[in-house]
């Protein structure tokens, strides 16, 4: 497993290792649930940002191997914009939210496919290595519009998903506003904008790449877990 230690050339110069992610931040994901979204167990569509935490055991660098556990046919490959916080963000209005951003990176939000959105599903989403990040943090000043970047996922070199960072329920600024209303983000924390609907699946022995316009390419490979 490659050492995760992503330093970069702008304050705060390194990531804190704290990674939060927005889930269900694409209306199309809720649309595919249809009526189910207002029936038990959910009962109503989400009103506040739906968030998850990627703990430190999940964080790996560009070029890592990620283990597909025994019993999982494939992993869900979520490609998200990673918003790197540059200054302490507490109760930040959307109008000034982008001033709190140091830069952007690529975050692979990996999971064992799970149909239910009711419970946090930590066993499915927070396994060792399930959050590759990188290859670098690009200063915010180099990204003109973080809400309009092309995103591509490639498996063994072939494009399997093409999306953008746009069309989110909450764009970058609004997400920072709604999250920092109740939890302070610190310099070096990463907030995932969230993946677009239709995240592809990939099996063990595949090589995966993610590209976000202006941010480079994040590579990792999937390996099968050795049977016990």
């Amino acid at each position, binding site marked *: 497993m490659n050492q995760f230690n992503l330093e970069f050339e702008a304050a705060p110069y390194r990531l804190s290792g*704290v990674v*939060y992610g927005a*889930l*269900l931040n694409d209306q199309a994901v809720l649309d595919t649930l249809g009526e189910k979204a207002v029936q*038990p*167990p*959910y*009962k*109503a569509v*989400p*009103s*506040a*940002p*739906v*968030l*998850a*935490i990627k*703990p*430190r*055991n*999940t964080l790996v660098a560009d070029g890592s191997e990620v283990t597909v*556990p025994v019993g999982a046919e494939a992993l869900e490959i979520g490609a998200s914009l990673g918003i790197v916080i540059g200054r302490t963000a*507490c*109760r930040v209005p959307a109008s000034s939210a982008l001033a709190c951003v140091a830069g952007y990176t690529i975050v692979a939000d990996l999971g064992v496919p799970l149909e239910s*959105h*009711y*419970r*946090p*599903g*930590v*066993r499915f989403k*927070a*396994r*060792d290595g399930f959050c590759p990040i990188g290859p670098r943090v690009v200063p915010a000043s180099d990204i003109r519009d973080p809400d309009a970047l092309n995103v591509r996922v490639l498996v063994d070199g072939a494009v399997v998903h093409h999306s953008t960072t746009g069309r989110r329920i909450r764009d970058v600024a609004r997400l920072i506003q709604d999250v920092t209303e*109740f*939890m*302070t*983000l*610190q310099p070096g924390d990463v907030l995932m904008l969230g993946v677009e609907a239709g995240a592809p699946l990939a099996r063990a022995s595949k090589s995966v790449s993610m590209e976000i316009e202006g941010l480079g390419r994040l590579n990792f490979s999937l390996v099968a877990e050795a049977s016990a």
Partner: protein
Amino acid sequence: MKTARVAYGGGLHAAHPHAVGVQLADGRVLAEDAVVWLPPFDVGTIIALGLNYADHVKELSKELTVTAKDEPLVFLKGPGALIGHRGFTRRPAGAKFMHYECELAVVIGKTAKKVKRDEAMAHVAGYTVCNDYAIRDYLENWYRPNLRVKNRDSCTVLGPWFVDAADVPDPHALSLRTYVNGHVTQQGCTADLINDIPALIEYLSEFMTLRAGDVILTGTPDGVVNVNEGDEVITEIDGIGRLINTIVGDASFGR
């Protein structure tokens, strides 16, 4: 041994219990309220358990939409929620139901990866008390319990002491209780954990490597009631510690 981390005189210090308060590693003896108490160890990943006492499951059963317990209900928390002993926790104006949760916090000392039950306790460094607040007004049924309920700034209180595992002969026989303004509102015993400590370490370490400083908040028993601005909430576990917290309103935060 019991160890705290406190701020005093412009520095951070290790501190130990003393007859009249605390003693810093450098020898100074101070009153308990003369120092600022921080979470008593360098906290890594915060792993919390929901519904891990049978009586608490029953208490909440009216609003649960699933009843069959198939595996531990685990959720994660971020470092921004943490505060120490004698700290202040914000109660947002307009919230109808904010409650404490007295929990035994298990601190990992040695890396644990695919550890079996029989070996699990060797990976525990020690224990402390956690008061893990929830504001139920914000519950939504997506990835529940959602972070807006359980991961708010100042809503996870840890301390006062980190107690070495060697000093806790049986962590599954500890009585715990909560006082609100001096009245006992919650009582339980760690003997009633649905998933005990070895079971939790075996379950978690199967899919996530636990490292020194990671902490498992083992859940809370029956007896959670609403608390209000100005309330003093004390969560106590026999042999581990007595953790004091005060509820404050939005005005303190300029809201």
